[in-house]
Protein backbone atom coordinates (compact mmCIF):
# COMPACT_ATOMS: atom_id res chain seq x y z
CA UNK A 1 0.00 0.00 0.00
CA UNK A 2 1.31 3.44 -0.86
CA UNK A 3 1.53 6.25 1.67
CA UNK A 4 -1.28 8.83 1.47
CA UNK A 5 -0.36 11.12 4.35
CA UNK A 6 2.73 11.59 6.48
CA UNK A 7 2.61 13.61 9.69
CA UNK A 8 6.00 14.48 11.16
CA UNK A 9 6.24 16.15 14.60
CA UNK A 10 3.05 18.07 13.97
CA UNK A 11 1.65 20.53 16.50
CA UNK A 12 -1.64 22.42 16.08
CA UNK A 13 -2.17 25.56 18.16
CA UNK A 14 -4.95 28.04 18.82
CA UNK A 15 -3.63 31.58 19.32
CA UNK A 16 -0.23 30.24 20.34
CA UNK A 17 -1.62 27.61 22.74
CA UNK A 18 -0.91 24.05 21.58
CA UNK A 19 -4.07 21.95 21.17
CA UNK A 20 -2.29 18.75 20.19
CA UNK A 21 1.43 18.08 19.91
CA UNK A 22 3.97 15.52 18.62
CA UNK A 23 1.78 13.92 15.96
CA UNK A 24 3.89 11.38 14.08
CA UNK A 25 1.97 8.92 11.95
CA UNK A 26 1.46 7.74 8.39
CA UNK A 27 -1.81 6.94 6.68
CA UNK A 28 -1.59 4.44 3.84
CA UNK A 29 -4.08 4.02 1.03
CA UNK A 30 -6.79 1.60 2.11
CA UNK A 31 -6.22 2.15 5.83
CA UNK A 32 -9.11 2.39 8.27
CA UNK A 33 -7.75 4.63 11.02
CA UNK A 34 -9.71 5.36 14.18
CA UNK A 35 -8.62 8.34 16.26
CA UNK A 36 -9.59 7.99 19.92
CA UNK A 37 -9.04 10.00 23.08
CA UNK A 38 -10.87 12.00 25.70
CA UNK A 39 -12.71 15.27 25.10
CA UNK A 40 -10.25 18.09 24.45
CA UNK A 41 -7.48 15.70 23.41
CA UNK A 42 -7.18 17.32 19.97
CA UNK A 43 -9.12 14.85 17.80
CA UNK A 44 -11.30 17.43 16.06
CA UNK A 45 -8.29 19.74 15.70
CA UNK A 46 -6.52 16.97 13.81
CA UNK A 47 -9.60 16.65 11.55
CA UNK A 48 -9.42 20.38 10.79
CA UNK A 49 -5.78 19.88 9.86
CA UNK A 50 -6.62 16.98 7.54
CA UNK A 51 -9.25 19.09 5.82
CA UNK A 52 -6.87 21.99 5.34
CA UNK A 53 -8.87 24.27 7.65
CA UNK A 54 -5.92 24.61 10.02
CA UNK A 55 -2.19 24.64 9.41
CA UNK A 56 0.32 23.02 11.75
CA UNK A 57 2.15 25.53 13.93
CA UNK A 58 5.07 23.10 13.93
CA UNK A 59 6.08 20.07 11.89
CA UNK A 60 4.88 18.93 8.48
CA UNK A 61 1.70 17.31 7.30
CA UNK A 62 2.30 16.09 3.75
CA UNK A 63 -0.12 14.32 1.43
CA UNK A 64 1.23 12.19 -1.43
CA UNK A 65 1.90 14.65 -4.32
CA UNK A 66 -0.29 12.48 -6.58
CA UNK A 67 -3.23 12.86 -4.21
CA UNK A 68 -5.98 15.32 -5.19
CA UNK A 69 -7.09 17.03 -1.98
CA UNK A 70 -10.52 17.63 -3.49
CA UNK A 71 -11.10 13.88 -3.21
CA UNK A 72 -11.60 14.13 0.55
CA UNK A 73 -15.11 13.49 1.84
CA UNK A 74 -16.08 14.83 5.24
CA UNK A 75 -18.80 13.78 7.66
CA UNK A 76 -18.79 16.36 10.49
CA UNK A 77 -20.05 16.19 14.02
CA UNK A 78 -23.74 17.03 14.01
CA UNK A 79 -24.80 20.18 15.84
CA UNK A 80 -28.06 20.40 17.76
CA UNK A 81 -29.24 23.10 15.31
CA UNK A 82 -28.83 20.65 12.42
CA UNK A 83 -30.95 17.90 13.90
CA UNK A 84 -34.20 19.82 13.27
CA UNK A 85 -33.06 21.74 10.22
CA UNK A 86 -35.77 22.19 7.57
CA UNK A 87 -34.00 20.78 4.52
CA UNK A 88 -34.91 17.91 2.23
CA UNK A 89 -32.58 14.93 1.98
CA UNK A 90 -31.92 15.73 -1.70
CA UNK A 91 -30.98 19.35 -0.90
CA UNK A 92 -28.40 18.15 1.61
CA UNK A 93 -26.88 15.44 -0.57
CA UNK A 94 -26.61 17.78 -3.56
CA UNK A 95 -24.79 20.37 -1.44
CA UNK A 96 -21.85 17.95 -1.36
CA UNK A 97 -21.19 18.89 -4.99
CA UNK A 98 -20.74 22.61 -4.34
CA UNK A 99 -17.03 22.49 -3.61
CA UNK A 100 -16.36 21.59 -7.24
CA UNK A 101 -18.78 24.00 -8.84
CA UNK A 102 -18.14 27.40 -10.31
CA UNK A 103 -19.13 30.61 -8.58
CA UNK A 104 -22.72 30.56 -9.84
CA UNK A 105 -23.83 27.16 -8.66
CA UNK A 106 -26.86 25.51 -10.18
CA UNK A 107 -27.35 21.75 -10.21
CA UNK A 108 -27.52 19.91 -13.54
CA UNK A 109 -29.63 16.87 -14.40
CA UNK A 110 -26.43 14.78 -14.11
CA UNK A 111 -25.88 16.12 -10.57
CA UNK A 112 -29.41 15.12 -9.57
CA UNK A 113 -28.95 11.67 -11.11
CA UNK A 114 -25.71 11.24 -9.19
CA UNK A 115 -27.42 12.22 -5.92
CA UNK A 116 -30.18 9.67 -6.63
CA UNK A 117 -27.58 6.94 -7.31
CA UNK A 118 -25.74 7.67 -4.07
CA UNK A 119 -29.00 7.67 -2.11
CA UNK A 120 -29.91 4.32 -3.66
CA UNK A 121 -26.48 2.91 -2.74
CA UNK A 122 -27.04 3.85 0.90
CA UNK A 123 -30.67 2.62 0.92
CA UNK A 124 -31.99 6.15 1.28
CA UNK A 125 -33.78 6.48 -2.06
CA UNK A 126 -37.22 6.26 -0.47
CA UNK A 127 -36.36 9.19 1.82
CA UNK A 128 -35.16 11.69 -0.79
CA UNK A 129 -38.12 14.05 -0.35
CA UNK A 130 -38.28 13.76 3.43
CA UNK A 131 -37.19 16.56 5.72
CA UNK A 132 -33.85 15.99 7.46
CA UNK A 133 -35.40 16.88 10.82
CA UNK A 134 -37.94 14.05 10.51
CA UNK A 135 -35.28 11.35 10.12
CA UNK A 136 -33.85 9.17 12.87
CA UNK A 137 -30.29 9.80 14.09
CA UNK A 138 -28.94 6.87 12.05
CA UNK A 139 -30.71 8.00 8.88
CA UNK A 140 -29.38 11.54 9.38
CA UNK A 141 -25.82 10.22 9.59
CA UNK A 142 -26.33 8.20 6.41
CA UNK A 143 -27.57 11.33 4.66
CA UNK A 144 -24.41 13.19 5.74
CA UNK A 145 -22.34 10.25 4.51
CA UNK A 146 -24.22 10.40 1.18
CA UNK A 147 -23.37 14.11 0.94
CA UNK A 148 -19.68 13.30 1.44
CA UNK A 149 -19.79 10.55 -1.21
CA UNK A 150 -21.64 12.79 -3.66
CA UNK A 151 -18.72 15.23 -3.75
CA UNK A 152 -16.71 13.46 -6.44
CA UNK A 153 -17.99 11.69 -9.52
CA UNK A 154 -14.65 9.83 -9.81
CA UNK A 155 -14.94 8.61 -6.24
CA UNK A 156 -13.46 9.62 -2.91
CA UNK A 157 -9.96 8.69 -1.88
CA UNK A 158 -10.14 9.73 1.77
CA UNK A 159 -13.21 9.82 4.00
CA UNK A 160 -12.90 11.79 7.25
CA UNK A 161 -15.61 11.23 9.86
CA UNK A 162 -15.77 13.29 13.06
CA UNK A 163 -17.65 11.41 15.78
CA UNK A 164 -20.35 10.10 13.44
CA UNK A 165 -21.67 7.66 16.07
CA UNK A 166 -22.50 10.23 18.78
CA UNK A 167 -25.96 9.75 20.21
CA UNK A 168 -26.82 6.68 18.10
CA UNK A 169 -28.32 3.45 19.40
CA UNK A 170 -25.90 0.48 19.47
CA UNK A 171 -27.58 -1.41 16.59
CA UNK A 172 -27.63 1.75 14.44
CA UNK A 173 -23.94 2.26 15.22
CA UNK A 174 -23.15 -1.25 14.06
CA UNK A 175 -24.97 -0.62 10.76
CA UNK A 176 -23.05 2.57 10.18
CA UNK A 177 -19.71 0.92 11.04
CA UNK A 178 -20.54 -1.86 8.56
CA UNK A 179 -21.36 0.71 5.92
CA UNK A 180 -18.05 2.53 6.41
CA UNK A 181 -16.21 -0.80 6.38
CA UNK A 182 -17.88 -1.68 3.06
CA UNK A 183 -16.78 1.66 1.57
CA UNK A 184 -13.26 0.95 2.83
CA UNK A 185 -12.98 -2.64 1.69
CA UNK A 186 -15.09 -2.60 -1.49
CA UNK A 187 -14.35 0.85 -2.88
CA UNK A 188 -10.86 1.18 -1.42
CA UNK A 189 -11.65 4.49 0.29
CA UNK A 190 -9.15 5.32 3.02
CA UNK A 191 -11.02 6.08 6.25
CA UNK A 192 -10.06 8.32 9.16
CA UNK A 193 -12.72 8.24 11.87
CA UNK A 194 -12.72 10.16 15.13
CA UNK A 195 -14.70 8.31 17.76
CA UNK A 196 -15.26 7.90 21.50
CA UNK A 197 -16.52 4.41 20.96
CA UNK A 198 -13.16 2.67 21.26
CA UNK A 199 -14.45 -0.85 21.93
CA UNK A 200 -16.54 -0.96 18.76
CA UNK A 201 -13.89 0.88 16.75
CA UNK A 202 -11.26 -1.82 17.34
CA UNK A 203 -13.58 -4.32 15.65
CA UNK A 204 -13.40 -2.39 12.38
CA UNK A 205 -10.23 -0.27 12.28
CA UNK A 206 -6.91 -1.42 10.85
CA UNK A 207 -4.96 1.26 12.73
CA UNK A 208 -5.51 3.22 15.93
CA UNK A 209 -4.29 6.67 16.98
CA UNK A 210 -4.66 7.59 20.65
CA UNK A 211 -4.44 11.28 21.56
CA UNK A 212 -4.28 13.09 24.87
CA UNK A 213 -3.21 16.59 23.75
CA UNK A 214 -0.19 14.71 22.40
CA UNK A 215 0.20 11.43 20.57
CA UNK A 216 0.14 8.55 23.03
CA UNK A 217 -0.11 5.65 20.63
CA UNK A 218 -0.10 4.92 16.92
CA UNK A 219 -0.06 1.44 15.43
CA UNK A 220 -2.14 -1.45 14.21
CA UNK A 221 -5.35 -2.37 16.02
CA UNK A 222 -3.73 -5.60 17.16
CA UNK A 223 -0.86 -3.68 18.75
CA UNK A 224 -3.34 -1.25 20.33
CA UNK A 225 -5.26 -4.08 21.96
CA UNK A 226 -2.05 -5.42 23.49
CA UNK A 227 -0.64 -2.05 24.52
CA UNK A 228 -1.25 -1.04 28.18
CA UNK A 229 -2.60 2.36 27.10
CA UNK A 230 -5.02 0.77 24.67
CA UNK A 231 -6.13 -1.86 27.13
CA UNK A 232 -6.72 0.73 29.86
CA UNK A 233 -8.77 2.91 27.55
CA UNK A 234 -10.88 -0.04 26.42
CA UNK A 235 -11.40 -1.18 29.99
CA UNK A 236 -12.35 2.35 31.13
CA UNK A 237 -14.78 2.71 28.24
CA UNK A 238 -16.79 -0.40 28.99
CA UNK A 239 -16.18 -0.70 32.72
CA UNK A 240 -14.45 -3.99 32.07
CA UNK A 241 -17.64 -5.83 31.25
CA UNK A 242 -17.52 -6.35 27.51
CA UNK A 243 -16.30 -9.21 25.39
CA UNK A 244 -14.36 -6.95 23.02
CA UNK A 245 -11.77 -5.57 25.45
CA UNK A 246 -11.20 -9.05 26.78
CA UNK A 247 -9.45 -7.81 29.88
CA UNK A 248 -12.21 -7.84 32.47
CA UNK A 249 -12.09 -6.10 35.84
CA UNK A 250 -9.02 -7.27 37.55
CA UNK A 251 -7.43 -7.97 34.19
CA UNK A 252 -7.47 -11.36 32.50
CA UNK A 253 -4.41 -10.36 30.52
CA UNK A 254 -2.66 -8.66 33.40
Amino acid sequence: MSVLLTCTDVTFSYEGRPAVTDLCFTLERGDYLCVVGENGSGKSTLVKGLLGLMRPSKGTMAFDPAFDCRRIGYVPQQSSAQRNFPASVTEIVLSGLLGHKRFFSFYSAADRARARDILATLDLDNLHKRSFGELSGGQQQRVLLARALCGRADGLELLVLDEPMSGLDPHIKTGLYELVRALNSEQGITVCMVTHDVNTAVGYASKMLLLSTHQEFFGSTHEFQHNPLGRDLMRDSCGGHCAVCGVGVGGRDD
Partner: protein
Amino acid sequence: MTDFSSALGGLGAMFAYTFVQRALLVGLLVSICAALLGTSLVLKRYSMIGDGLSHVGFGSLAVATALGAAPLAVALPVTVVAAFLLLRLTEQGKLKGDAAIALLSASAVAIGVFVISMTTGMNTDVDNFLFGSILALNEGDVVLSSVLCAVVLVLFVLFYNRIFAVTFDEVHAQASGIRTGLYSSLLAVLTAFTIVVGMRMMGALLISSLVVFPVLSAMCLRGSFKAVTVLAACLSVACYLIGIMTSFMLATPTGASIVIINLCAYLVCRASLWARGRVRRT
Protein backbone atom coordinates in the same frame (compact mmCIF):
# COMPACT_ATOMS: atom_id res chain seq x y z
CA MET B 1 -73.30 45.46 4.44
CA THR B 2 -73.02 49.21 4.87
CA ASP B 3 -70.19 48.70 7.37
CA PHE B 4 -68.36 46.43 4.91
CA SER B 5 -68.77 48.94 2.06
CA SER B 6 -67.57 51.81 4.21
CA ALA B 7 -64.58 49.73 5.35
CA LEU B 8 -63.69 49.01 1.71
CA GLY B 9 -64.15 52.67 0.90
CA GLY B 10 -61.85 53.55 3.78
CA LEU B 11 -59.19 51.17 2.48
CA GLY B 12 -59.52 52.68 -0.99
CA ALA B 13 -59.06 56.15 0.47
CA MET B 14 -56.04 54.90 2.42
CA PHE B 15 -54.18 53.93 -0.77
CA ALA B 16 -54.79 57.40 -2.23
CA TYR B 17 -52.37 58.99 0.25
CA THR B 18 -48.80 59.32 -1.05
CA PHE B 19 -47.26 58.51 2.35
CA VAL B 20 -49.30 55.30 2.53
CA GLN B 21 -48.18 54.30 -0.97
CA ARG B 22 -44.57 54.90 0.07
CA ALA B 23 -45.05 52.93 3.28
CA LEU B 24 -46.63 50.07 1.35
CA LEU B 25 -43.81 49.90 -1.17
CA VAL B 26 -40.98 50.23 1.37
CA GLY B 27 -42.73 47.86 3.78
CA LEU B 28 -43.29 45.16 1.17
CA LEU B 29 -39.68 45.35 -0.04
CA VAL B 30 -38.28 45.33 3.51
CA SER B 31 -40.59 42.43 4.44
CA ILE B 32 -39.25 40.34 1.57
CA CYS B 33 -35.61 41.16 2.43
CA ALA B 34 -36.10 40.54 6.15
CA ALA B 35 -37.75 37.15 5.56
CA LEU B 36 -35.13 35.96 3.06
CA LEU B 37 -32.21 37.03 5.24
CA GLY B 38 -34.07 35.85 8.33
CA THR B 39 -34.22 32.27 7.01
CA SER B 40 -30.46 32.01 7.18
CA LEU B 41 -30.11 33.98 10.42
CA VAL B 42 -32.78 32.05 12.34
CA LEU B 43 -31.46 28.68 11.20
CA LYS B 44 -27.89 29.65 12.11
CA ARG B 45 -29.27 30.69 15.51
CA TYR B 46 -28.43 34.34 14.95
CA SER B 47 -32.06 35.47 15.43
CA MET B 48 -31.14 38.11 17.97
CA ILE B 49 -28.70 39.80 15.60
CA GLY B 50 -31.67 41.74 14.14
CA ASP B 51 -32.61 42.93 17.61
CA GLY B 52 -29.05 43.96 18.42
CA LEU B 53 -28.63 45.83 15.15
CA SER B 54 -31.93 47.67 15.58
CA HIS B 55 -30.73 48.97 18.94
CA VAL B 56 -27.49 50.09 17.33
CA GLY B 57 -29.60 51.71 14.60
CA PHE B 58 -31.64 53.51 17.25
CA GLY B 59 -28.52 54.78 19.01
CA SER B 60 -26.99 56.08 15.79
CA LEU B 61 -30.25 57.69 14.58
CA ALA B 62 -30.60 59.40 17.94
CA VAL B 63 -27.04 60.71 17.80
CA ALA B 64 -27.55 61.88 14.19
CA THR B 65 -30.74 63.73 15.22
CA ALA B 66 -29.02 65.33 18.18
CA LEU B 67 -26.14 66.49 15.98
CA GLY B 68 -28.43 67.63 13.18
CA ALA B 69 -26.87 65.16 10.69
CA ALA B 70 -28.73 63.14 8.00
CA PRO B 71 -30.07 60.09 9.91
CA LEU B 72 -29.36 57.45 7.26
CA ALA B 73 -25.86 58.78 6.52
CA VAL B 74 -24.92 58.06 10.14
CA ALA B 75 -27.07 55.02 10.93
CA LEU B 76 -26.16 52.91 7.88
CA PRO B 77 -22.37 52.85 8.26
CA VAL B 78 -22.55 52.53 12.05
CA THR B 79 -24.97 49.58 11.86
CA VAL B 80 -22.92 47.85 9.16
CA VAL B 81 -19.78 48.17 11.31
CA ALA B 82 -21.75 46.81 14.28
CA ALA B 83 -22.89 43.85 12.17
CA PHE B 84 -19.27 43.01 11.28
CA LEU B 85 -18.24 43.44 14.90
CA LEU B 86 -20.99 41.09 16.11
CA LEU B 87 -19.97 38.45 13.57
CA ARG B 88 -16.29 38.65 14.45
CA LEU B 89 -16.88 38.60 18.22
CA THR B 90 -19.14 35.57 17.87
CA GLU B 91 -17.01 33.65 15.35
CA GLN B 92 -13.77 34.13 17.22
CA GLY B 93 -15.50 32.87 20.35
CA LYS B 94 -14.26 35.85 22.36
CA LEU B 95 -17.82 36.41 23.55
CA LYS B 96 -20.91 34.23 23.37
CA GLY B 97 -23.25 35.41 20.61
CA ASP B 98 -26.05 36.50 22.96
CA ALA B 99 -23.60 38.27 25.29
CA ALA B 100 -22.04 40.15 22.36
CA ILE B 101 -25.48 41.29 21.18
CA ALA B 102 -26.51 42.37 24.70
CA LEU B 103 -23.27 44.28 25.13
CA LEU B 104 -23.56 46.10 21.83
CA SER B 105 -27.28 46.88 21.95
CA ALA B 106 -27.31 48.17 25.53
CA SER B 107 -24.24 50.33 24.85
CA ALA B 108 -25.75 51.77 21.65
CA VAL B 109 -29.07 52.64 23.31
CA ALA B 110 -27.27 54.16 26.30
CA ILE B 111 -25.09 56.35 24.06
CA GLY B 112 -28.17 57.42 22.03
CA VAL B 113 -30.22 58.33 25.12
CA PHE B 114 -27.24 60.05 26.77
CA VAL B 115 -26.51 62.25 23.76
CA ILE B 116 -30.20 63.11 23.27
CA SER B 117 -30.71 64.05 26.90
CA MET B 118 -27.72 66.41 26.61
CA THR B 119 -29.09 68.07 23.45
CA THR B 120 -32.62 67.99 22.02
CA GLY B 121 -34.29 65.88 24.71
CA MET B 122 -36.81 63.07 24.02
CA ASN B 123 -38.91 64.50 21.19
CA THR B 124 -41.25 63.12 18.50
CA ASP B 125 -38.35 62.09 16.24
CA VAL B 126 -36.85 59.90 18.94
CA ASP B 127 -40.26 58.46 19.75
CA ASN B 128 -40.69 57.57 16.06
CA PHE B 129 -37.34 55.77 16.03
CA LEU B 130 -38.46 53.63 18.95
CA PHE B 131 -41.99 52.75 17.84
CA GLY B 132 -41.96 53.57 14.13
CA SER B 133 -44.05 55.85 11.95
CA ILE B 134 -45.06 55.50 8.33
CA LEU B 135 -44.92 59.29 8.08
CA ALA B 136 -41.13 59.11 8.54
CA LEU B 137 -40.52 57.53 5.13
CA ASN B 138 -39.44 59.61 2.13
CA GLU B 139 -38.51 59.12 -1.54
CA GLY B 140 -34.95 58.25 -0.56
CA ASP B 141 -36.24 55.31 1.50
CA VAL B 142 -38.19 54.03 -1.51
CA VAL B 143 -35.05 54.11 -3.68
CA LEU B 144 -32.87 52.56 -0.97
CA SER B 145 -35.32 49.75 -0.20
CA SER B 146 -35.78 49.01 -3.94
CA VAL B 147 -32.02 48.71 -4.44
CA LEU B 148 -31.69 46.62 -1.26
CA CYS B 149 -34.47 44.27 -2.31
CA ALA B 150 -32.97 43.86 -5.78
CA VAL B 151 -29.56 43.02 -4.28
CA VAL B 152 -31.04 40.50 -1.83
CA LEU B 153 -33.15 38.82 -4.52
CA VAL B 154 -30.21 38.56 -6.94
CA LEU B 155 -28.03 37.19 -4.13
CA PHE B 156 -30.59 34.54 -3.26
CA VAL B 157 -31.23 33.49 -6.86
CA LEU B 158 -27.57 33.27 -7.89
CA PHE B 159 -26.10 31.91 -4.68
CA TYR B 160 -29.07 30.05 -3.22
CA ASN B 161 -27.27 26.69 -3.10
CA ARG B 162 -24.21 28.16 -1.42
CA ILE B 163 -26.31 30.10 1.10
CA PHE B 164 -28.04 26.83 1.91
CA ALA B 165 -24.72 25.00 2.34
CA VAL B 166 -23.31 27.72 4.63
CA THR B 167 -26.52 27.86 6.66
CA PHE B 168 -26.86 24.11 7.08
CA ASP B 169 -23.25 23.26 7.85
CA GLU B 170 -20.66 26.02 7.91
CA VAL B 171 -17.70 23.74 8.70
CA HIS B 172 -18.52 21.35 5.87
CA ALA B 173 -19.01 24.27 3.50
CA GLN B 174 -15.64 25.67 4.54
CA ALA B 175 -14.00 22.28 4.04
CA SER B 176 -15.57 22.14 0.55
CA GLY B 177 -13.79 25.36 -0.36
CA ILE B 178 -16.79 27.69 -0.06
CA ARG B 179 -15.79 31.12 1.29
CA THR B 180 -18.13 31.01 4.24
CA GLY B 181 -16.80 34.25 5.74
CA LEU B 182 -17.78 36.14 2.60
CA TYR B 183 -21.36 34.86 2.69
CA SER B 184 -21.74 35.48 6.42
CA SER B 185 -20.42 39.03 6.02
CA LEU B 186 -22.73 39.67 3.08
CA LEU B 187 -25.73 38.45 5.07
CA ALA B 188 -24.71 40.64 8.02
CA VAL B 189 -24.32 43.77 5.85
CA LEU B 190 -27.63 43.24 4.06
CA THR B 191 -29.35 42.59 7.40
CA ALA B 192 -27.91 45.87 8.74
CA PHE B 193 -29.31 47.74 5.71
CA THR B 194 -32.70 46.04 6.06
CA ILE B 195 -32.88 46.90 9.75
CA VAL B 196 -31.99 50.56 9.25
CA VAL B 197 -34.41 51.04 6.35
CA GLY B 198 -37.21 49.15 8.09
CA MET B 199 -36.82 50.47 11.63
CA ARG B 200 -38.10 53.96 10.87
CA MET B 201 -41.38 52.43 9.81
CA MET B 202 -41.56 49.52 12.28
CA GLY B 203 -39.61 51.04 15.17
CA ALA B 204 -36.33 49.90 16.70
CA LEU B 205 -38.18 47.79 19.25
CA LEU B 206 -40.20 45.86 16.67
CA ILE B 207 -38.20 45.59 13.43
CA SER B 208 -36.45 42.35 14.41
CA SER B 209 -39.84 40.62 14.38
CA LEU B 210 -39.85 40.86 10.57
CA VAL B 211 -36.63 38.84 10.54
CA VAL B 212 -37.83 36.14 12.94
CA PHE B 213 -41.62 35.63 12.84
CA PRO B 214 -42.20 34.70 9.16
CA VAL B 215 -39.37 32.16 9.26
CA LEU B 216 -40.64 30.52 12.46
CA SER B 217 -44.14 30.34 10.97
CA ALA B 218 -42.85 28.87 7.68
CA MET B 219 -40.78 26.28 9.55
CA CYS B 220 -44.01 24.94 11.10
CA LEU B 221 -45.45 24.26 7.65
CA ARG B 222 -42.64 23.12 5.38
CA GLY B 223 -39.68 20.77 5.63
CA SER B 224 -37.31 21.88 2.87
CA PHE B 225 -35.08 24.93 2.88
CA LYS B 226 -36.39 26.19 -0.44
CA ALA B 227 -40.03 25.89 0.65
CA VAL B 228 -39.31 27.59 4.00
CA THR B 229 -37.51 30.46 2.26
CA VAL B 230 -40.28 31.09 -0.28
CA LEU B 231 -43.08 30.62 2.24
CA ALA B 232 -41.41 32.95 4.77
CA ALA B 233 -41.23 35.71 2.13
CA CYS B 234 -44.91 35.16 1.16
CA LEU B 235 -46.06 35.12 4.80
CA SER B 236 -44.04 38.23 5.56
CA VAL B 237 -45.66 40.14 2.68
CA ALA B 238 -49.16 38.91 3.58
CA CYS B 239 -48.75 39.81 7.28
CA TYR B 240 -47.39 43.22 6.36
CA LEU B 241 -50.38 43.99 4.10
CA ILE B 242 -52.93 42.77 6.63
CA GLY B 243 -51.08 44.61 9.41
CA ILE B 244 -50.99 47.97 7.67
CA MET B 245 -54.67 47.71 6.71
CA THR B 246 -55.58 46.78 10.28
CA SER B 247 -53.56 49.71 11.53
CA PHE B 248 -55.43 52.08 9.19
CA MET B 249 -58.87 50.71 10.00
CA LEU B 250 -58.40 50.56 13.78
CA ALA B 251 -56.14 53.64 14.00
CA THR B 252 -53.46 51.61 15.80
CA PRO B 253 -49.65 52.00 15.48
CA THR B 254 -48.44 50.38 12.24
CA GLY B 255 -45.41 48.53 13.63
CA ALA B 256 -47.31 47.02 16.54
CA SER B 257 -50.22 46.00 14.27
CA ILE B 258 -47.88 44.20 11.86
CA VAL B 259 -46.12 42.37 14.69
CA ILE B 260 -49.47 41.26 16.19
CA ILE B 261 -50.60 39.92 12.80
CA ASN B 262 -47.27 38.08 12.50
CA LEU B 263 -47.80 36.65 15.99
CA CYS B 264 -51.30 35.46 15.04
CA ALA B 265 -49.91 33.85 11.87
CA TYR B 266 -47.23 32.09 13.93
CA LEU B 267 -49.81 30.78 16.43
CA VAL B 268 -52.00 29.48 13.59
CA CYS B 269 -49.00 27.74 11.95
CA ARG B 270 -47.93 26.29 15.30
CA ALA B 271 -51.48 25.01 15.92
CA SER B 272 -51.48 23.43 12.47
CA LEU B 273 -48.16 21.68 13.25
CA TRP B 274 -49.56 20.43 16.55
CA ALA B 275 -52.78 19.22 14.86
CA ARG B 276 -50.82 17.36 12.16
CA GLY B 277 -48.74 15.70 14.89
CA ARG B 278 -51.95 14.58 16.64
CA VAL B 279 -53.38 13.18 13.40
CA ARG B 280 -50.16 11.25 12.72
CA ARG B 281 -50.12 9.78 16.23
CA THR B 282 -53.76 8.61 16.04
